């Protein structure tokens, strides 16, 4: 009883007082957090003043953020640019497709690997699937160019033989094929790596639950759905929230290398646009403004997903 009262009172007290109380009660936890807090402060919060650059002209002599205040000038430049809508749309489309296709893939893969009974085969699969993660973007794109090449590519020929792709289509040069190609090769590359965390989470399922399930007469499919899946839901939700928080972060390198004259309509994204503007002039402030815009959108997505997730599953970041 008295504890409850205490809690209620605590909420009303000013932050400083509450912090002090918490420090006294949980000083051990604070010590455990201290190195992380200090590190983040020095390397992330100290340089944070740089954010102001988005609202200022860059001036070398006045220091990085000492230039004249221009308010939303660079934001306006971006919003009024002819490329604003197309690049934003393309970025969203690519990113959303990546999440819809790419997010469930490692979960399913982890489930499959988890169900393999033959230990040797399990190890073989598990060690193979995560290797693509180590292939650099440059080689990745070279491989895409060779394997999907119009007349001689092994994969494109295979897709055409099984009539998944019409025989007169050049996959590499088709605007409508760009997003599937980009997303699926991305899934290929990261699926195994991303499944590691789920495999680890699955390994911590209490084996007593399996025994209980067996006694209830559940088959393997049912066990998987009712025991394994719920066990990794917190991990799934947290990663989904984090993924949604990166909705506008479409990496530059791969897109840039995969761009060609034919697919530009689908492949010109925010990051390549900023590069194209910046390559001809050192556009510090413009880049900062676009970056800040991305960040804010990302952050909003994170907050919304977090809120929904907390509502539905009870799991959330904060």
């Amino acid at each position: 009883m008295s504890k409850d009262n205490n809690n209620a009172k605590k909420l009303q007290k000013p932050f400083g007082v509450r912090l002090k109380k918490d420090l006294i009660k949980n000083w051990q936890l604070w010590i455990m957090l201290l190195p992380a807090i200090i590190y983040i402060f020095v390397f992330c919060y100290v340089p944070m003043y740089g954010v102001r650059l988005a609202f200022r002209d860059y001036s070398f002599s006045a220091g990085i953020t000492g230039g004249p205040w221009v308010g939303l000038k660079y934001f306006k430049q971006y919003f009024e640019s002819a490329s604003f809508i197309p690049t934003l749309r393309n970025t969203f489309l690519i990113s959303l497709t990546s999440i819809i296709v790419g997010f469930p893939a490692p979960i399913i893969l982890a489930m499959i690997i988890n169900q393999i009974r033959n230990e040797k085969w399990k190890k073989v699969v598990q060690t193979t699937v995560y290797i693509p993660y180590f292939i650099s973007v440059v080689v990745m794109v070279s491989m895409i160019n060779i394997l999907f090449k119009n007349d001689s590519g092994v994969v494109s020929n295979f897709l055409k033989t099984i009539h998944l792709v019409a025989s007169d289509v050049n996959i590499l040069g088709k605007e409508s094929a760009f997003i599937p190609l980009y997303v699926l090769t991305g899934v290929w590359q990261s699926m195994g790596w991303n499944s590691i965390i789920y495999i680890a989470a699955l390994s911590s399922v209490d084996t007593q639950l399996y025994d209980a399930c067996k006694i209830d007469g559940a088959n393997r499919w049912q066990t998987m759905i009712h025991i394994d899946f719920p066990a990794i839901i917190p991990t799934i939700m947290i990663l989904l929230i984090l993924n949604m928080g990166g909705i506008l972060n479409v990496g530059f390198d791969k897109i840039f290398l995969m761009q060609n004259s034919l697919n530009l309509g689908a492949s010109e994204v925010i990051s390549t646009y900023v590069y194209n503007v910046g390559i001809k002039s050192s556009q510090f402030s413009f880049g900062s403004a676009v970056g800040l815009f991305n960040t804010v959108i990302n952050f909003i997505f994170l907050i919304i997903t977090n809120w929904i997730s907390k509502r539905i599953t009870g799991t959330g970041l904060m």
Partner: protein
Amino acid sequence: MSKATIQGSGIKTRNLSDRIFGAAVIILSILVFVIIAYPLYFVVIASISNSNLVNIGAVTFYPKDIRFYGYEQIFQDTRIWVGYGNTILYVVVGTILNMVITLPAGYALSRKDFMARNVVMFYFVFTMFFNGGLVPTYMTVSSLGLISTKTILIIFVAINTYNLIICRTFMQSAIPEDLYEAAILDGCSHFKYFMTVVMPLSKAVISVLALYYAVFHWNDYFNALIYNSKADNAPLQIVLREILLLNQAFANGNGGVQGGYGQSSADQVKYAIIIVSTLPILCVYPFIQKYFEKGVMIGAVKG
């Protein structure tokens, strides 16, 4: 009697559906394996075939016109050994530092009775999105006198918020709360509970985080590029990048800089680099894999 029959038929249908399920698992895993393995195999054969033939799509299932120019180029460069040495240093020391900082922090944030947890969490999450940019960060590092030192390449990104969140989520969801309550009754402190109960129960997540951090250090190219300009400190990825550039066909458009050298082998380097830079880190995985076995956790509790 009747009960036994029902159970018997139940087992039968269960056996049948389990068999179908088992077959589906095998088929799917073989499918995934082939899709993943073929391009990997392609990297290997491309690294020893005539690059012209690779580029025109003539190399598909076995290497053609075998040559080892790519590997020769990489291993005749003495810088590569310095690079390996530095990278191993950064990976080992860096990862240990990461774990020492991340695990206790993850534990503290996983405690539901830690009132400031949401505020502190926000403190971390905020930095995932908002940062001052490269230049102010560089100036901060510079003011600490860490530019072009081995130290900065070890301590930079000493804690990754993403990994911290994974750590916290795991400790929060996979470690039964009653263990803590029992420990508290025994008069156990957070420190002791963390060391004797949480750590042994978190082997799976510890190995995942160690892998994540180690691979991050192993692959880290950008930070080494920005914060270091001393050849003595250059990690493997920087060295490999230079070897790659040196063998790339000169970009078009600048006629004065052509060298018609080894086009038929030059592109081998980019495939060989994948193998040279990936093999060592691949060897780490089997050691980590064993902590993903089922029952590790329960065994630990009982032990």
